[in-house]
């Protein structure tokens, strides 16, 4: 990187968990629960980014590609139906080119009342090494593509394959985005320091992301379900002091496999029946947070 690198990126001020101002969710719910399905499109033979390889194997990486393609052919439909059945809307982390390739999946999510934010153009195109004009181009592409396909103006961003530049957050705020899912420092929303406008970091999660569960921690489906239930129970309990956020980030090609979807249903049943969960979408959480905390801190 030619830009000066900072050892402290200066994203936010330190705020200890103890003695925080009380955040409250509607109807005295203690934990806002949102599900973030990653609806993605991966390219079979993508252009090469000099800073990161797309696939482990030479193209075509048949297992890597076809495993992910299972999402659009099979497991999205399985996962989406189950979320709707238990009253969970999605806040979609979207490879926006999916709108062009497989509009059926995007239309299905839109009809279910799900919200969309951008996860880049493809999950095989990375932001590393982009100049400002290039980064603006993918943001503008994202806004226009999703608006055309769904009528929704995207309000948030999860960097494509979690690839950033030091200017990404400032640009998101400049384009009027309200939230980023890329920062993992807290269980409550935080306003991030940006050059202009206001940008809120909403808790997403790598730790309870299904990809981490199954491919980093090597959990069985039932161990992962148990992990989500423990995560929820603790956050709902602590949220009585000051309300918390729990995100369940999913990839349907993982959670929607036939051996995993059954145990996952028990998680949704548990959270829906508990009574302390505000089951909602990312934008609603950011709105409720800002209503209580006002402008950028």
């Amino acid at each position, binding site marked *: 990187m030619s830009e000066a690198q900072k050892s402290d990126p200066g994203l936010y001020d330190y705020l200890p968990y103890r003695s925080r101002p009380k955040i409250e969710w509607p109807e005295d719910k203690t934990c806002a629960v949102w599900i973030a399905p990653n609806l993605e499109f991966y390219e079979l033979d993508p252009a090469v980014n000099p800073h990161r390889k797309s696939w482990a194997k030479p193209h075509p990486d048949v297992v890597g590609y076809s495993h992910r393609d299972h999402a659009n052919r099979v497991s999205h439909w399985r996962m989406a139906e189950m979320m709707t059945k238990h009253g969970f809307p999605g806040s979609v982390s979207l490879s926006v080119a999916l709108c062009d390739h497989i509009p059926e999946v995007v239309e299905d999510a839109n009809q279910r009342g799900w919200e969309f934010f951008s996860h880049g153009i493809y999950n095989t195109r990375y932001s590393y090494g982009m100049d400002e004009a290039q980064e603006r181009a993918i943001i503008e592409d994202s806004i226009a593509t999703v608006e055309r396909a769904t009528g929704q103006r995207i309000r948030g961003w999860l960097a494509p394959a979690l690839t950033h530049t030091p200017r990404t957050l400032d640009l998101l705020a400049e384009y009027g985005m309200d939230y980023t899912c890329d920062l993992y420092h807290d269980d409550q929303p935080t306003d991030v320091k940006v050059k202009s406008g206001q940008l809120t970091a909403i808790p997403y999660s790598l730790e309870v992301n299904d990809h981490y569960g199954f491919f980093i921690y090597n959990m069985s489906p039932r161990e992962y379900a148990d992990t989500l239930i423990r995560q929820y129970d603790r956050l709902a309990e602590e949220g009585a002091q000051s309300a918390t956020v729990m995100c369940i980030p999913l990839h349907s090609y993982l959670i929607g496999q*036939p051996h995993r979807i059954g145990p996952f249903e028990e998680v949704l049943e548990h959270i829906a029946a508990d009574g302390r969960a505000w089951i909602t979408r990312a934008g609603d959480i950011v709105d409720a947070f800002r209503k209580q905390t006002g402008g950028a801190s």
Partner: protein
Amino acid sequence: MSLDPSYLEYPKRGRGMDHDYYRYGSLFDRKPVQWPDDKKLLIWPVISLEYFPMVPKDNPFRAPGHMQTAYPDYRHYTAREYGTRIGIYRLLGAFEKVGIKVSVATNGVVAERYPQLIEDIISGGHEIIAHSTDMNGTIASGMDEADEKALIDGALSTLEKATGKRPRGWLSIARSQSFNTAKLLVEAGVEYMCDWANDELPYKFQTDAGPITNIPLNHELSDRQIINVQQQSIDSYAQQMTDAADWLLAEAGQYGGRMLPMHLTPYITGLPYRISSFEQLIAGFAERDDIGFARGETILDSWKAKQ
């Protein structure tokens, strides 16, 4: 710093897939599949029968399960041989006990080295799927097309010679293909391949030499993935297979027949401390009226007849 402008060009961005191999289609929009004997769920056991030469080849890549230490790696060479001497017979025995015919994805070299084993597989009514030459016979882009063709033809011919029948199915090592593989399989007379894991029913795959059927062999539900990679127990494996079967049976009631691949490795599941749990698992499946077992070619014929 900036990226080459072509990095923000997307020539394949448009309706459908970004290649011509197959068309997009949701599993839930298909004409319902009806399996023989009105079974709602067909379990498809596939045993990989592998020979690992003690001198590994890294071009195009070293196969999973291959040698790891400096030469001579007696440890891994013999532990893999345990699979073709002992483990395979435990697995075949487990299936034969409940009258189940399976597919055996076989390295061509195994047929030359262990003809008695091949005879036992054939006389048991099991199917041989071609699984390359030996575990040095990996395929990936970068490989010369003539070499790849020779590898595919060689594996098929060896197995045909040993069994009297040309295999109808193909499984690549680690499911790894080049852009030419499917075409070369069609040219070699192969009717179905098991490499692409993107679906849960057979589907048609196009090549320049004509179509081939892909029967997806779920790589996540393999003993290798669950037991070796994810380090779960055989009991967890059995639980996951049972959960999968239950889920698919429920779906079958609404959407038509479903299939559940069961990919096995003799040196993994065929160990003394694992085999009993596995026997209980398949005995439990075999007792259920709505579940059947099938070889790959049976699934292929049954699916094709209804298209």
